[in-house]
Protein backbone atom coordinates (compact mmCIF):
# COMPACT_ATOMS: atom_id res chain seq x y z
CA UNK A 1 0.00 0.00 0.00
CA UNK A 2 1.39 3.39 -0.99
CA UNK A 3 0.50 5.88 1.71
CA UNK A 4 1.09 9.64 1.63
CA UNK A 5 0.88 11.59 4.87
CA UNK A 6 0.28 15.32 4.73
CA UNK A 7 1.57 17.59 7.48
CA UNK A 8 1.73 21.27 8.26
CA UNK A 9 4.30 23.49 9.94
CA UNK A 10 2.68 25.67 12.63
CA UNK A 11 3.84 28.01 15.40
CA UNK A 12 3.98 26.66 18.97
CA UNK A 13 0.65 28.11 20.07
CA UNK A 14 1.49 28.00 23.78
CA UNK A 15 4.28 30.55 23.13
CA UNK A 16 2.29 33.03 21.04
CA UNK A 17 2.14 36.24 23.05
CA UNK A 18 -0.48 38.96 23.08
CA UNK A 19 0.68 42.53 22.44
CA UNK A 20 -0.81 45.55 24.23
CA UNK A 21 -3.02 46.34 21.22
CA UNK A 22 -4.41 42.81 21.07
CA UNK A 23 -2.29 41.75 18.11
CA UNK A 24 -0.21 38.59 18.33
CA UNK A 25 3.52 38.25 18.72
CA UNK A 26 5.19 35.16 17.30
CA UNK A 27 8.68 36.24 18.41
CA UNK A 28 8.98 33.36 20.90
CA UNK A 29 6.83 30.85 19.07
CA UNK A 30 9.05 28.28 17.37
CA UNK A 31 7.81 26.46 14.29
CA UNK A 32 6.82 22.86 14.88
CA UNK A 33 5.06 19.95 13.20
CA UNK A 34 1.33 20.29 13.75
CA UNK A 35 0.64 17.94 16.60
CA UNK A 36 -2.32 16.08 15.12
CA UNK A 37 -0.51 15.36 11.86
CA UNK A 38 1.85 13.22 13.92
CA UNK A 39 -1.10 10.92 14.63
CA UNK A 40 -1.59 10.61 10.87
CA UNK A 41 2.08 9.66 10.45
CA UNK A 42 1.77 7.07 13.20
CA UNK A 43 -1.42 5.66 11.63
CA UNK A 44 0.36 5.40 8.28
CA UNK A 45 3.33 3.59 9.84
CA UNK A 46 1.10 1.13 11.67
CA UNK A 47 -0.83 0.40 8.49
CA UNK A 48 2.26 -0.22 6.41
CA UNK A 49 3.83 -2.30 9.19
CA UNK A 50 0.71 -4.47 9.04
CA UNK A 51 0.18 -4.87 5.29
CA UNK A 52 3.44 -3.73 3.68
CA UNK A 53 4.04 -0.79 1.42
CA UNK A 54 5.61 2.63 1.79
CA UNK A 55 4.94 5.91 3.54
CA UNK A 56 5.78 9.24 1.92
CA UNK A 57 5.51 12.57 3.74
CA UNK A 58 4.27 15.72 2.02
CA UNK A 59 3.97 19.33 3.07
CA UNK A 60 3.21 22.56 1.26
CA UNK A 61 4.00 26.12 2.33
CA UNK A 62 6.43 29.01 2.11
CA UNK A 63 10.15 28.92 2.89
CA UNK A 64 9.64 27.85 6.51
CA UNK A 65 8.94 24.26 5.42
CA UNK A 66 12.66 24.12 4.54
CA UNK A 67 13.56 24.10 8.25
CA UNK A 68 16.05 21.22 8.39
CA UNK A 69 15.24 20.23 11.96
CA UNK A 70 11.58 19.80 11.03
CA UNK A 71 12.39 17.88 7.86
CA UNK A 72 14.47 15.48 9.96
CA UNK A 73 11.79 15.33 12.60
CA UNK A 74 9.09 14.16 10.19
CA UNK A 75 11.36 11.65 8.44
CA UNK A 76 12.59 10.26 11.77
CA UNK A 77 9.03 9.18 12.46
CA UNK A 78 9.18 6.63 9.69
CA UNK A 79 8.33 7.97 6.20
CA UNK A 80 10.91 6.85 3.64
CA UNK A 81 10.90 10.05 1.62
CA UNK A 82 9.63 13.60 1.71
CA UNK A 83 8.12 15.98 -0.82
CA UNK A 84 7.92 19.74 -0.30
CA UNK A 85 5.89 22.12 -2.43
CA UNK A 86 7.48 25.45 -1.61
CA UNK A 87 6.15 28.74 -2.90
CA UNK A 88 5.93 32.18 -1.31
CA UNK A 89 2.32 32.43 -2.51
CA UNK A 90 1.49 29.68 -0.02
CA UNK A 91 2.44 31.83 2.99
CA UNK A 92 -1.17 32.49 3.92
CA UNK A 93 -2.86 29.77 1.89
CA UNK A 94 -6.50 29.10 2.82
CA UNK A 95 -7.91 25.59 2.96
CA UNK A 96 -8.96 25.55 -0.70
CA UNK A 97 -5.56 26.53 -1.98
CA UNK A 98 -3.85 24.09 0.37
CA UNK A 99 -6.13 21.28 -0.79
CA UNK A 100 -5.59 22.18 -4.45
CA UNK A 101 -1.80 22.11 -4.05
CA UNK A 102 -1.88 18.84 -2.11
CA UNK A 103 -4.18 17.30 -4.73
CA UNK A 104 -1.80 18.22 -7.55
CA UNK A 105 1.19 16.93 -5.58
CA UNK A 106 -0.29 13.57 -4.53
CA UNK A 107 -1.45 12.98 -8.10
CA UNK A 108 2.18 13.41 -9.21
CA UNK A 109 3.53 11.15 -6.48
CA UNK A 110 0.86 8.44 -6.82
CA UNK A 111 -0.97 6.85 -3.87
CA UNK A 112 -3.40 4.26 -2.57
CA UNK A 113 -4.20 6.18 0.57
CA UNK A 114 -3.68 9.76 1.78
CA UNK A 115 -3.79 10.43 5.52
CA UNK A 116 -4.25 13.85 7.09
CA UNK A 117 -4.73 15.02 10.65
CA UNK A 118 -8.26 16.08 11.52
CA UNK A 119 -7.13 19.71 11.59
CA UNK A 120 -3.98 21.77 11.97
CA UNK A 121 -3.30 22.92 15.52
CA UNK A 122 -3.06 26.58 14.42
CA UNK A 123 -6.30 27.33 12.51
CA UNK A 124 -8.04 23.99 13.01
CA UNK A 125 -10.46 24.56 10.14
CA UNK A 126 -10.77 20.79 9.58
CA UNK A 127 -11.47 21.27 5.89
CA UNK A 128 -8.31 20.36 3.97
CA UNK A 129 -8.52 16.56 4.10
CA UNK A 130 -12.11 16.51 2.93
CA UNK A 131 -11.50 19.03 0.18
CA UNK A 132 -8.48 17.07 -0.97
CA UNK A 133 -10.62 13.94 -1.33
CA UNK A 134 -13.27 15.84 -3.25
CA UNK A 135 -10.67 17.28 -5.62
CA UNK A 136 -9.22 13.83 -6.22
CA UNK A 137 -12.71 12.36 -6.66
CA UNK A 138 -11.97 9.49 -4.27
CA UNK A 139 -13.74 8.35 -1.10
CA UNK A 140 -12.91 10.65 1.81
CA UNK A 141 -14.03 10.67 5.39
CA UNK A 142 -13.17 12.62 8.54
CA UNK A 143 -13.20 11.79 12.27
CA UNK A 144 -11.47 8.46 11.66
CA UNK A 145 -10.57 6.86 14.99
CA UNK A 146 -9.61 3.38 13.76
CA UNK A 147 -8.36 1.89 10.48
CA UNK A 148 -8.39 -1.85 9.82
CA UNK A 149 -7.19 -3.15 6.45
CA UNK A 150 -9.48 -5.73 4.82
CA UNK A 151 -8.07 -6.89 1.50
CA UNK A 152 -8.28 -4.01 -0.97
CA UNK A 153 -10.70 -2.19 1.29
CA UNK A 154 -10.52 -0.51 4.67
CA UNK A 155 -12.82 -0.84 7.66
CA UNK A 156 -13.08 2.56 9.30
CA UNK A 157 -14.38 3.57 12.68
CA UNK A 158 -15.57 7.12 13.32
CA UNK A 159 -16.17 8.37 16.84
CA UNK A 160 -19.08 10.77 16.43
CA UNK A 161 -20.91 12.88 19.03
CA UNK A 162 -22.77 10.01 20.63
CA UNK A 163 -22.09 6.95 18.54
CA UNK A 164 -19.36 5.02 16.83
CA UNK A 165 -19.91 4.51 13.12
CA UNK A 166 -18.23 1.63 11.33
CA UNK A 167 -17.98 1.80 7.56
CA UNK A 168 -16.16 0.24 4.68
CA UNK A 169 -14.26 2.17 2.02
CA UNK A 170 -12.55 1.19 -1.19
CA UNK A 171 -9.09 2.45 -2.15
CA UNK A 172 -7.80 4.86 -3.25
CA UNK A 173 -9.11 7.07 -0.47
CA UNK A 174 -8.34 10.06 1.74
CA UNK A 175 -8.83 9.87 5.51
CA UNK A 176 -8.62 12.57 8.17
CA UNK A 177 -7.71 10.91 11.46
CA UNK A 178 -8.49 12.09 14.97
CA UNK A 179 -5.87 12.90 17.57
CA UNK A 180 -6.84 9.87 19.61
CA UNK A 181 -6.47 7.24 16.89
CA UNK A 182 -3.12 6.27 18.40
CA UNK A 183 -0.29 7.32 20.67
CA UNK A 184 2.64 8.58 18.64
CA UNK A 185 6.09 7.10 19.03
CA UNK A 186 9.07 9.30 19.79
CA UNK A 187 11.91 8.72 17.34
CA UNK A 188 15.22 7.56 18.79
CA UNK A 189 18.71 8.81 17.96
CA UNK A 190 19.13 6.09 15.29
CA UNK A 191 15.96 7.19 13.47
CA UNK A 192 16.96 10.85 13.68
CA UNK A 193 20.39 10.13 12.20
CA UNK A 194 18.90 7.98 9.43
CA UNK A 195 16.38 10.73 8.64
CA UNK A 196 19.13 13.00 7.37
CA UNK A 197 19.91 10.51 4.59
CA UNK A 198 16.37 10.05 3.28
CA UNK A 199 15.49 11.59 -0.10
CA UNK A 200 13.77 15.00 -0.15
CA UNK A 201 12.19 16.34 -3.35
CA UNK A 202 11.29 20.00 -3.68
CA UNK A 203 8.74 21.40 -6.12
CA UNK A 204 7.15 24.80 -6.65
CA UNK A 205 3.60 25.60 -7.79
CA UNK A 206 4.63 25.89 -11.41
CA UNK A 207 6.09 22.38 -11.40
CA UNK A 208 2.81 20.80 -10.26
CA UNK A 209 0.72 22.89 -12.65
CA UNK A 210 -0.93 25.35 -10.25
CA UNK A 211 -1.36 28.77 -11.86
CA UNK A 212 -3.86 30.57 -9.67
CA UNK A 213 -3.19 30.87 -5.98
CA UNK A 214 -5.90 33.16 -4.66
CA UNK A 215 -7.96 32.61 -1.49
CA UNK A 216 -11.73 32.11 -1.28
CA UNK A 217 -11.88 33.22 2.32
CA UNK A 218 -10.51 36.68 3.14
CA UNK A 219 -9.01 37.33 6.53
CA UNK A 220 -10.38 40.57 7.97
CA UNK A 221 -8.64 40.68 11.35
CA UNK A 222 -6.89 38.49 13.91
CA UNK A 223 -6.93 39.71 17.48
CA UNK A 224 -6.74 38.26 20.95
CA UNK A 225 -10.24 37.75 22.36
CA UNK A 226 -11.46 40.14 24.98
CA UNK A 227 -10.78 38.43 28.23
CA UNK A 228 -13.88 37.11 29.88
CA UNK A 229 -13.88 38.68 33.33
CA UNK A 230 -13.43 35.69 35.62
CA UNK A 231 -14.00 36.04 39.33
CA UNK A 232 -10.80 34.10 40.06
CA UNK A 233 -11.77 33.36 43.64
CA UNK A 234 -9.26 30.91 45.03
CA UNK A 235 -9.68 29.09 48.33
CA UNK A 236 -7.37 26.55 49.90
CA UNK A 237 -8.29 23.30 51.58
CA UNK A 238 -11.49 21.46 52.22
CA UNK A 239 -12.90 22.96 55.40
CA UNK A 240 -16.64 23.05 55.83
CA UNK A 241 -17.13 26.78 55.07
CA UNK A 242 -15.13 26.46 51.88
CA UNK A 243 -17.12 23.50 50.65
CA UNK A 244 -20.29 25.41 51.54
CA UNK A 245 -19.09 28.41 49.53
CA UNK A 246 -18.30 26.14 46.57
CA UNK A 247 -21.79 24.66 46.77
CA UNK A 248 -23.38 28.09 46.88
CA UNK A 249 -21.77 28.94 43.56
CA UNK A 250 -22.74 25.61 42.04
CA UNK A 251 -26.35 25.95 43.15
CA UNK A 252 -26.54 29.50 41.78
CA UNK A 253 -25.37 28.32 38.35
CA UNK A 254 -27.73 25.35 38.34
CA UNK A 255 -30.76 27.61 38.41
Amino acid at each position, binding site marked *: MKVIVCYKIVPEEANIEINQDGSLSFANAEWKLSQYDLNAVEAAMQLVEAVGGSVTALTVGDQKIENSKLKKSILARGPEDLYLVKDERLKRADTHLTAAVLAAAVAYIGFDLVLCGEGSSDFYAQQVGIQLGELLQVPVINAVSKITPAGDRLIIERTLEDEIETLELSLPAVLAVTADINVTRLPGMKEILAAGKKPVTEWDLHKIGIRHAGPRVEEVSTLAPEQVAR*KKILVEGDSEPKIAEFLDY*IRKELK
Partner: protein
Amino acid sequence: MAGTWVFVEQRDGNIRKVTFEMLTEAKKYGDEVSAVVFGKGVKGLAPEFAKFGADKVYAVEGDVFADYNTGAYVAQIVAMINEFKPNAVLFAHSFNGRDFASRLAQKLEAGLATDVIAAEISAGKGLFTRAIYAGKALSKVEITTSPILATIRPGVFGVAESAGAGAVVEPAVAAGAGDVYQIVKEFKPTVSARPELTEAEVVVSGGRGCKGPEGIKIIEEFADLLGAAVGGSRASIDSGWLGHELQVGQTGKVVNPNLYVACGISGAIQHLAGMSSSKFIAAVNTDTEAPIFNVSDFGVVGDLFKVVPLLVAELKK
Protein backbone atom coordinates in the same frame (compact mmCIF):
# COMPACT_ATOMS: atom_id res chain seq x y z
CA MET B 1 -29.94 34.60 -4.14
CA ALA B 2 -32.19 34.86 -1.17
CA GLY B 3 -32.84 33.20 2.10
CA THR B 4 -30.83 31.48 4.80
CA TRP B 5 -30.86 27.70 4.92
CA VAL B 6 -30.23 25.73 8.06
CA PHE B 7 -29.22 22.13 7.53
CA VAL B 8 -30.95 20.05 10.17
CA GLU B 9 -28.77 17.85 12.34
CA GLN B 10 -30.90 14.87 13.25
CA ARG B 11 -30.79 11.14 13.57
CA ASP B 12 -33.87 8.91 13.58
CA GLY B 13 -36.00 12.00 14.12
CA ASN B 14 -34.04 13.20 17.16
CA ILE B 15 -33.16 16.79 16.34
CA ARG B 16 -29.99 18.16 17.85
CA LYS B 17 -30.33 21.41 19.74
CA VAL B 18 -27.80 23.19 17.52
CA THR B 19 -30.43 23.09 14.76
CA PHE B 20 -32.69 25.37 16.80
CA GLU B 21 -29.72 27.58 17.68
CA MET B 22 -29.00 28.02 13.98
CA LEU B 23 -32.66 28.76 13.14
CA THR B 24 -32.78 31.37 15.92
CA GLU B 25 -29.59 32.98 14.64
CA ALA B 26 -30.77 32.91 11.02
CA LYS B 27 -33.94 34.79 12.00
CA LYS B 28 -31.76 37.77 12.95
CA TYR B 29 -30.68 38.35 9.36
CA GLY B 30 -34.21 39.38 8.35
CA ASP B 31 -34.17 37.11 5.31
CA GLU B 32 -36.41 34.10 4.72
CA VAL B 33 -35.34 31.15 6.88
CA SER B 34 -35.61 27.55 5.72
CA ALA B 35 -34.82 24.30 7.44
CA VAL B 36 -33.35 21.65 5.15
CA VAL B 37 -33.78 18.10 6.35
CA PHE B 38 -32.64 14.84 4.76
CA GLY B 39 -33.66 11.42 6.01
CA LYS B 40 -36.40 8.87 6.24
CA GLY B 41 -39.78 9.98 7.56
CA VAL B 42 -38.51 13.49 8.23
CA LYS B 43 -41.37 15.46 6.63
CA GLY B 44 -43.34 15.18 9.84
CA LEU B 45 -40.64 17.11 11.72
CA ALA B 46 -41.62 20.35 9.93
CA PRO B 47 -43.67 21.79 12.84
CA GLU B 48 -40.58 21.49 15.07
CA PHE B 49 -38.70 23.87 12.78
CA ALA B 50 -41.68 26.19 12.32
CA LYS B 51 -41.66 26.72 16.08
CA PHE B 52 -38.25 28.34 15.76
CA GLY B 53 -39.18 30.53 12.83
CA ALA B 54 -38.64 28.37 9.74
CA ASP B 55 -40.68 29.88 6.92
CA LYS B 56 -40.04 26.85 4.75
CA VAL B 57 -38.94 23.28 5.32
CA TYR B 58 -37.18 21.51 2.48
CA ALA B 59 -37.71 17.82 3.26
CA VAL B 60 -35.87 15.20 1.23
CA GLU B 61 -37.03 11.66 1.86
CA GLY B 62 -35.33 8.47 0.81
CA ASP B 63 -33.59 5.32 1.99
CA VAL B 64 -30.28 6.62 0.71
CA PHE B 65 -30.60 9.62 3.06
CA ALA B 66 -31.46 7.60 6.15
CA ASP B 67 -27.88 7.84 7.50
CA TYR B 68 -25.41 10.57 6.67
CA ASN B 69 -23.35 9.72 3.62
CA THR B 70 -21.32 12.36 1.89
CA GLY B 71 -21.83 11.34 -1.72
CA ALA B 72 -25.62 11.30 -1.64
CA TYR B 73 -25.96 14.31 0.62
CA VAL B 74 -23.64 16.51 -1.43
CA ALA B 75 -25.23 15.51 -4.77
CA GLN B 76 -28.66 16.29 -3.35
CA ILE B 77 -27.87 19.66 -1.81
CA VAL B 78 -25.91 20.85 -4.85
CA ALA B 79 -28.98 20.22 -7.02
CA MET B 80 -31.16 22.08 -4.53
CA ILE B 81 -28.76 25.04 -4.25
CA ASN B 82 -28.72 25.34 -8.04
CA GLU B 83 -32.52 25.29 -8.17
CA PHE B 84 -33.47 27.46 -5.18
CA LYS B 85 -30.36 29.64 -4.88
CA PRO B 86 -30.10 30.39 -1.15
CA ASN B 87 -27.94 33.30 -0.02
CA ALA B 88 -26.38 31.29 2.81
CA VAL B 89 -26.34 27.72 4.13
CA LEU B 90 -25.51 26.97 7.76
CA PHE B 91 -24.41 23.58 9.09
CA ALA B 92 -23.74 22.33 12.59
CA HIS B 93 -20.06 22.07 13.42
CA SER B 94 -20.45 18.37 14.20
CA PHE B 95 -18.28 15.62 12.72
CA ASN B 96 -20.76 14.99 9.93
CA GLY B 97 -21.62 18.68 9.51
CA ARG B 98 -18.02 19.66 8.85
CA ASP B 99 -17.49 16.67 6.55
CA PHE B 100 -20.57 17.65 4.55
CA ALA B 101 -19.89 21.39 4.41
CA SER B 102 -16.20 21.00 3.47
CA ARG B 103 -17.05 18.67 0.63
CA LEU B 104 -19.84 20.95 -0.56
CA ALA B 105 -17.59 24.02 -0.45
CA GLN B 106 -15.03 22.28 -2.64
CA LYS B 107 -17.69 21.12 -5.07
CA LEU B 108 -19.10 24.64 -5.42
CA GLU B 109 -15.66 26.28 -5.28
CA ALA B 110 -17.05 28.41 -2.49
CA GLY B 111 -15.47 29.69 0.71
CA LEU B 112 -16.41 28.07 4.01
CA ALA B 113 -15.95 29.28 7.59
CA THR B 114 -15.84 26.42 10.10
CA ASP B 115 -16.55 26.33 13.86
CA VAL B 116 -18.08 29.80 13.79
CA ILE B 117 -18.84 31.54 17.10
CA ALA B 118 -20.24 34.84 15.73
CA ALA B 119 -21.85 35.61 12.39
CA GLU B 120 -23.23 38.51 10.36
CA ILE B 121 -24.86 37.59 7.09
CA SER B 122 -26.23 39.98 4.50
CA ALA B 123 -26.93 39.65 0.78
CA GLY B 124 -23.83 38.16 -0.80
CA LYS B 125 -21.62 38.62 2.22
CA GLY B 126 -20.84 36.70 5.38
CA LEU B 127 -18.62 37.93 8.19
CA PHE B 128 -17.63 35.19 10.61
CA THR B 129 -15.60 34.96 13.80
CA ARG B 130 -13.72 31.81 14.71
CA ALA B 131 -11.13 30.90 17.31
CA ILE B 132 -7.59 30.10 16.17
CA TYR B 133 -4.31 29.12 17.86
CA ALA B 134 -6.19 27.00 20.41
CA GLY B 135 -8.33 29.97 21.40
CA LYS B 136 -5.48 32.48 21.78
CA ALA B 137 -6.93 34.64 19.01
CA LEU B 138 -10.17 35.33 17.23
CA SER B 139 -10.02 35.52 13.49
CA LYS B 140 -12.63 37.44 11.52
CA VAL B 141 -13.08 36.20 7.99
CA GLU B 142 -15.20 37.42 5.12
CA ILE B 143 -16.85 35.24 2.52
CA THR B 144 -18.31 36.66 -0.66
CA THR B 145 -18.52 33.50 -2.75
CA SER B 146 -21.99 32.09 -3.32
CA PRO B 147 -23.68 30.66 -1.43
CA ILE B 148 -22.15 31.75 1.85
CA LEU B 149 -21.22 28.62 3.81
CA ALA B 150 -20.48 28.17 7.50
CA THR B 151 -20.47 25.51 10.21
CA ILE B 152 -21.75 26.76 13.56
CA ARG B 153 -20.28 25.74 16.92
CA PRO B 154 -23.01 24.11 19.06
CA GLY B 155 -24.01 25.83 22.27
CA VAL B 156 -22.85 29.35 21.37
CA PHE B 157 -25.99 30.86 19.90
CA GLY B 158 -29.14 31.17 21.99
CA VAL B 159 -32.48 29.55 21.28
CA ALA B 160 -35.71 31.55 21.00
CA GLU B 161 -39.06 30.40 19.69
CA SER B 162 -40.77 32.42 16.96
CA ALA B 163 -43.61 31.22 14.80
CA GLY B 164 -42.82 30.47 11.15
CA ALA B 165 -45.07 29.11 8.43
CA GLY B 166 -43.02 25.92 8.10
CA ALA B 167 -44.35 25.31 4.60
CA VAL B 168 -43.08 21.93 3.40
CA VAL B 169 -41.28 21.79 0.07
CA GLU B 170 -40.29 18.39 -1.31
CA PRO B 171 -37.50 18.77 -3.83
CA ALA B 172 -36.85 16.00 -6.34
CA VAL B 173 -34.18 13.48 -5.42
CA ALA B 174 -31.11 14.46 -7.41
CA ALA B 175 -29.50 12.28 -10.03
CA GLY B 176 -26.29 10.89 -8.57
CA ALA B 177 -27.63 10.77 -5.06
CA GLY B 178 -27.54 6.99 -5.28
CA ASP B 179 -23.79 6.81 -5.90
CA VAL B 180 -22.66 5.61 -2.54
CA TYR B 181 -19.02 4.67 -2.23
CA GLN B 182 -18.97 4.03 1.45
CA ILE B 183 -20.98 1.32 3.08
CA VAL B 184 -22.13 1.98 6.59
CA LYS B 185 -21.83 -1.28 8.46
CA GLU B 186 -22.95 -0.35 11.90
CA PHE B 187 -23.82 2.36 14.39
CA LYS B 188 -22.94 1.67 17.96
CA PRO B 189 -24.29 4.31 20.31
CA THR B 190 -21.82 5.34 22.97
CA VAL B 191 -24.55 4.77 25.50
CA SER B 192 -24.89 7.10 28.40
CA ALA B 193 -27.82 8.20 30.47
CA ARG B 194 -26.03 11.53 30.92
CA PRO B 195 -26.56 14.54 28.67
CA GLU B 196 -24.42 14.84 25.55
CA LEU B 197 -21.38 17.06 26.19
CA THR B 198 -21.96 19.76 23.60
CA GLU B 199 -25.59 20.17 24.64
CA ALA B 200 -25.14 19.93 28.42
CA GLU B 201 -25.93 22.80 30.80
CA VAL B 202 -23.46 21.45 33.32
CA VAL B 203 -20.23 19.57 32.64
CA VAL B 204 -17.97 17.89 35.19
CA SER B 205 -14.57 16.91 33.83
CA GLY B 206 -11.77 14.81 35.23
CA GLY B 207 -8.09 14.91 34.35
CA ARG B 208 -4.78 13.41 35.35
CA GLY B 209 -5.54 14.24 38.98
CA CYS B 210 -8.22 11.53 39.00
CA LYS B 211 -5.30 9.07 38.99
CA GLY B 212 -7.45 6.20 37.68
CA PRO B 213 -10.95 4.74 37.35
CA GLU B 214 -11.57 5.24 41.07
CA GLY B 215 -11.14 8.98 40.72
CA ILE B 216 -13.41 9.00 37.67
CA LYS B 217 -16.10 7.21 39.70
CA ILE B 218 -15.99 10.02 42.23
CA ILE B 219 -16.53 12.72 39.64
CA GLU B 220 -19.23 10.66 37.89
CA GLU B 221 -21.22 10.43 41.10
CA PHE B 222 -20.86 14.18 41.53
CA ALA B 223 -21.92 14.77 37.91
CA ASP B 224 -25.01 12.60 38.27
CA LEU B 225 -26.17 14.57 41.32
CA LEU B 226 -25.91 17.74 39.19
CA GLY B 227 -27.51 16.15 36.12
CA ALA B 228 -24.26 16.94 34.35
CA ALA B 229 -22.38 15.49 31.41
CA VAL B 230 -19.01 13.91 32.19
CA GLY B 231 -15.94 14.88 30.21
CA GLY B 232 -12.21 14.45 30.43
CA SER B 233 -8.91 16.03 29.50
CA ARG B 234 -6.51 14.37 27.09
CA ALA B 235 -4.68 12.75 30.02
CA SER B 236 -7.68 10.85 31.36
CA ILE B 237 -8.81 9.84 27.86
CA ASP B 238 -5.38 8.57 26.78
CA SER B 239 -5.11 6.64 30.03
CA GLY B 240 -8.30 4.83 29.07
CA TRP B 241 -10.29 6.01 32.09
CA LEU B 242 -12.95 7.62 29.86
CA GLY B 243 -14.13 6.97 26.30
CA HIS B 244 -12.70 8.99 23.42
CA GLU B 245 -16.06 10.60 22.76
CA LEU B 246 -15.78 12.33 26.15
CA GLN B 247 -12.66 14.37 25.47
CA VAL B 248 -13.08 18.09 26.00
CA GLY B 249 -10.59 20.21 24.11
CA GLN B 250 -9.48 21.39 20.70
CA THR B 251 -9.41 17.91 19.22
CA GLY B 252 -12.38 16.63 21.18
CA LYS B 253 -15.54 18.47 21.95
CA VAL B 254 -15.95 22.17 22.51
CA VAL B 255 -18.42 22.75 25.32
CA ASN B 256 -20.26 25.88 26.41
CA PRO B 257 -22.20 24.96 29.56
CA ASN B 258 -23.50 27.31 32.23
CA LEU B 259 -21.28 25.54 34.72
CA TYR B 260 -18.02 23.71 34.06
CA VAL B 261 -16.28 21.93 36.92
CA ALA B 262 -12.70 20.87 36.19
CA CYS B 263 -11.41 18.24 38.61
CA GLY B 264 -7.73 17.43 38.61
CA ILE B 265 -7.19 19.18 35.28
CA SER B 266 -4.15 21.45 35.06
CA GLY B 267 -5.45 23.38 32.04
CA ALA B 268 -3.22 22.82 29.00
CA ILE B 269 -3.99 25.24 26.18
CA GLN B 270 -5.62 22.48 24.11
CA HIS B 271 -8.04 21.76 26.94
CA LEU B 272 -8.80 25.44 27.53
CA ALA B 273 -9.70 25.74 23.84
CA GLY B 274 -12.56 23.33 24.48
CA MET B 275 -14.11 24.88 27.58
CA SER B 276 -12.97 28.44 28.24
CA SER B 277 -16.19 29.95 26.90
CA SER B 278 -18.23 28.23 29.61
CA LYS B 279 -20.27 30.72 31.63
CA PHE B 280 -19.04 29.79 35.09
CA ILE B 281 -15.88 27.77 35.58
CA ALA B 282 -14.98 26.03 38.82
CA ALA B 283 -11.81 24.03 39.36
CA VAL B 284 -10.35 21.69 41.93
CA ASN B 285 -6.62 21.14 41.72
CA THR B 286 -3.80 20.47 44.16
CA ASP B 287 -1.44 22.85 42.35
CA THR B 288 -1.95 26.56 43.15
CA GLU B 289 -0.06 27.42 39.93
CA ALA B 290 -2.28 25.31 37.63
CA PRO B 291 -3.27 27.37 34.55
CA ILE B 292 -6.88 26.26 34.98
CA PHE B 293 -7.17 28.72 37.88
CA ASN B 294 -6.45 31.63 35.49
CA VAL B 295 -9.73 30.97 33.70
CA SER B 296 -11.73 29.94 36.76
CA ASP B 297 -14.40 31.88 38.61
CA PHE B 298 -14.07 29.69 41.65
CA GLY B 299 -11.10 27.51 42.43
CA VAL B 300 -10.30 25.15 45.27
CA VAL B 301 -6.69 24.33 45.92
CA GLY B 302 -7.16 20.86 47.30
CA ASP B 303 -7.33 17.17 46.65
CA LEU B 304 -10.31 16.16 44.53
CA PHE B 305 -10.44 12.86 46.45
CA LYS B 306 -11.35 14.90 49.53
CA VAL B 307 -13.19 17.90 48.06
CA VAL B 308 -15.53 16.13 45.65
CA PRO B 309 -16.85 13.53 48.13
CA LEU B 310 -17.60 16.38 50.54
CA LEU B 311 -19.59 18.13 47.80
CA VAL B 312 -21.37 14.87 47.04
CA ALA B 313 -22.26 14.35 50.71
CA GLU B 314 -23.67 17.87 50.95
CA LEU B 315 -25.68 17.51 47.74
CA LYS B 316 -27.17 14.27 49.00
CA LYS B 317 -28.52 15.96 52.11
